[in-house]
């Protein structure tokens, strides 16, 4: 499983971007053989990624090169195809030189994914906050669903329980660009706090009168509840949007029943 990529660049106006998508037989020297040929032919590799995880015997090597306008690379392709490790070569020219993508659609954990700017996500949150009753509840419920689904997807690749779920959560947040987490949790009682030091919601939302990370709280609650099979409640008690230096989400087991006392949210923690 590898995340597909899209490349954004500002290339030299006098040059053009030619991309190559090479299927190769995976040996220890395959990638080196291909890269050497590019160097030998004077093709300037500006961006590349390779993947031999999904299929260990056949790798995928995607290379974006910047070349002088009008250059014919067909002879290079012929030589590439002549390498004993190369199985197939696709190539093409990107005309706009701003967005190049070889893969469509994007996928994540085998499911359709998209790339969204944090600002766009936050625009949705803003509109919900401004116009929809119980906006915090909606965001939290959305987060719970996302967090629960994330664990279910991860379980296809790794066993998850209370012993590793917080580390996985931290890795997931960093990998997806959502934030840098620190946690201080008593795993036995499932109490403690999670701090997010670079929350993407705050980064786009900026200052606000009230905490804005209910979606993140919900994600934590869904993720941890699903991973530990114990129902937890999570509430944001500090938020960078309200001037705190980090966002802090308090974690505790959900009460066994609901009563009038729980209506007052202040008593939940």
């Amino acid at each position, binding site marked *: 499983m590898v995340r597909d990529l899209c490349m954004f660049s500002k290339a030299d106006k006098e040059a053009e971007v030619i991309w190559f998508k090479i299927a190769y037989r995976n040996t220890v020297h395959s990638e080196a053989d291909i890269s050497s040929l590019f160097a030998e032919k004077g093709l300037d590799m500006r961006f590349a990624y390779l993947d031999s995880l999904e299929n260990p015997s056949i790798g995928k090597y995607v290379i974006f090169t910047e070349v002088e306008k009008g250059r014919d690379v067909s002879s290079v392709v012929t030589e590439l195809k002549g390498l004993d490790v190369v199985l197939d070569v696709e190539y093409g020219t990107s005309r706009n030189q701003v967005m190049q993508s070889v893969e469509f659609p994007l996928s994540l954990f085998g499911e359709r994914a998209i790339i969204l700017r944090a600002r766009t996500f936050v625009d949705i949150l803003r509109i919900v906050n401004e116009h929809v*009753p*119980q906006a*915090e*509840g909606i965001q939290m*419920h959305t987060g719970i669903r996302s967090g629960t689904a994330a664990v279910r997807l991860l379980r296809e690749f790794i066993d998850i329980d209370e012993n590793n779920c917080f580390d996985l959560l931290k890795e997931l947040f960093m990998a997806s660009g959502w934030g840098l987490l620190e946690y201080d949790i008593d795993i036995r009682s499932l109490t403690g706090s999670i701090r997010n030091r670079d929350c993407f919601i705050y980064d786009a939302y900026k200052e606000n009168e009230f905490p804005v990370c209910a979606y993140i*709280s919900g994600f934590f609650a869904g993720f941890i509840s699903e991973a530990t099979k114990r129902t937890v409640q999570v*509430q944001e008690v500090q938020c960078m949007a309200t001037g705190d230096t980090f966002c802090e989400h308090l974690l505790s087991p959900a009460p066994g*029943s*609901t009563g009038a006392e729980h*209506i007052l949210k202040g008593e939940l923690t």
Partner: protein
Amino acid sequence: MIRQPNSILGNRQLLVTMGKKGELFGFFYPGRDFAQHIEESQACLYEGNRLIWSNDHEWHASQRYVENSNIVNTELVHQCGLRMHIQDLVHTDQPILVRNYRISPSRKFQGKFFYYSNLQVGEMQKKNSAFCDRDSGLLVQYWKDFHIGISSRPVFEEWQIGKALDTVWWTNAKYDMENGKLQNNLEDIGNINNAIGWELDIDADSTAEITILICAASTRQLLYRSIRDIRNETVESMFDQTYESGLKWLSRKRPLELKGFPGFEFVKLELTEAFNRSLLALGILNDPTRGTFVAAPEFDHDFEKSGGYGYCWNRDSSEIVIALLDSGYPEYCERFFSWCKKTQLPDGSWFQRYWLDGNAGSSWGNFSFSTQIDETGSTLFAMEKYYGSLEPILKKEFLDNIWGTILSAAEYLMRRTPGGMHEPCICLWETHQGVFTYTNAAIYGGLMGASRMAMDHNETELANWWRERAELIKEQTIERFWLPDEGYFARGIRHGSIDKEIDASILGTFMPFNMLSAEDEKEREMIHSIISNLESRLRVPVNRYYGIRRYEKDTYIDGNPWTVTTLWLSKAMLSLAGSMKERDEGTKKSGEWKTMATGALEYILWSLRGTTCAGMLPEQVNKYTGRPAWAIPLSWSCALMLQNIILLDGLG
């Protein structure tokens, strides 16, 4: 959220709308228009570690009414071998929906049966309260004088009442179902949801049966009393009573012979079913205490894509009561015209649309230039139709009772037509502003009707005055709007110039308002020409024939063909064929007669192919898929279906 029903049920106090997998979309009590208490209500099975909702895409669904009744059978077959049969009916005397579930697995099933509801009692998402009365086996949610109770047979074993959308997410009944065990919270307030549950242990090819009863009442005491009153009634006896009440209702209908047309012998049963279904649907869409109808059960509560349909338009209701009169149910006229008497505005007109209790509906027609004058014309026209059907002694009684209303309405029409044609207003489709052929025809029909009634009321001077104005309107409409080269009426005048876009509503000059008469040779030619132009320019090929759009540049909900305009056209064709039969029996099988009758029958069959699988007639049919598209069931479509079948029967 906009959801189009597949079927409806109801009694005098209750109107229920349902999706094709038996999920409840609407639960209207005590009016047909207000209040709608349900956001979501459906069953769910829990097996091992997963929930199988009854509206999951994995179920294959079929839904049909029990013939001649308002009892709905929904069959769900899951790919894992489960079968769920749901029989829904509304109790004949109590505002109680009875939902009988029978679950049969192909292999042993061990799990739970949950019934989940997200109620918004009184159309309020907030400030609701709910409690579970364990001793009575009743879960109640209420707001002010609206109370909804859920009980069951057998009594539910577990339950949850929780916050639907709060940060205390684990109390949410939907989440609570996920681990297969409910928390049994006794009460809560705010935006809340609930679930009730049973252990379910069914051997392969055996059946488990659970009945859910959803009751409405104005007070807690009445709710308990309703539940108590039916405690000794079995589901079978409630089925029998509801079934008999449907049969009894239909036994009064006008008898139909429906002698076959060559090549269409196979449709007699289909037409009879459509006739009965339209009658049964209209019976539910009518408010029996107030006398009027909703255009359709409301489905666009937030006016997301339309102005909503859960209101009474005089234009629609006038058409409906006349269709019911012709079908053998005159009492709807009496009640509707009493309602009209109460709701008439001081200037003699009627408002764009009303709540069924007579209050003005939310409207974009609050000014004299934005009102719809045709609605006042239609109302007067319908009054005279009804008047014409009465025995002499009843005629006098009716006229004495309603004369003030007639006088005021006719004088309003006179004031709005000072030069002959009407002053600018909004068209019947609520789209354009201007002077319209259709509106003029409706005013013509209204004034001619009023004139005839005035004559009988010994108001000769008024009768002549109104008739002369009607004739002037007709003269001017033909003179200014008839397009001799094209052979149809222009839509009217918009922005100071003639709008030549062809519009199906010009049929109103013939049907129903009789401004053009089939008996007059020249006018008959005009009617033929209108029909021919509408067929060639507005028809859309879908469902193996053609549906008719409203007008060429229609963009409302994708500009689909409408059941209304299609049945309107077929009604005109059948009327034309009928007039030929009367004129010349000897040439009954003439080419013209055959063309009109056969063409009309094709349009009727097209309309039937565009119903829901339960037989509900929509306002529109999707132009690509041929499926019912919008406003289901539409009472105007039902009325037109009745009128078409009656006319067809008359031709046999």
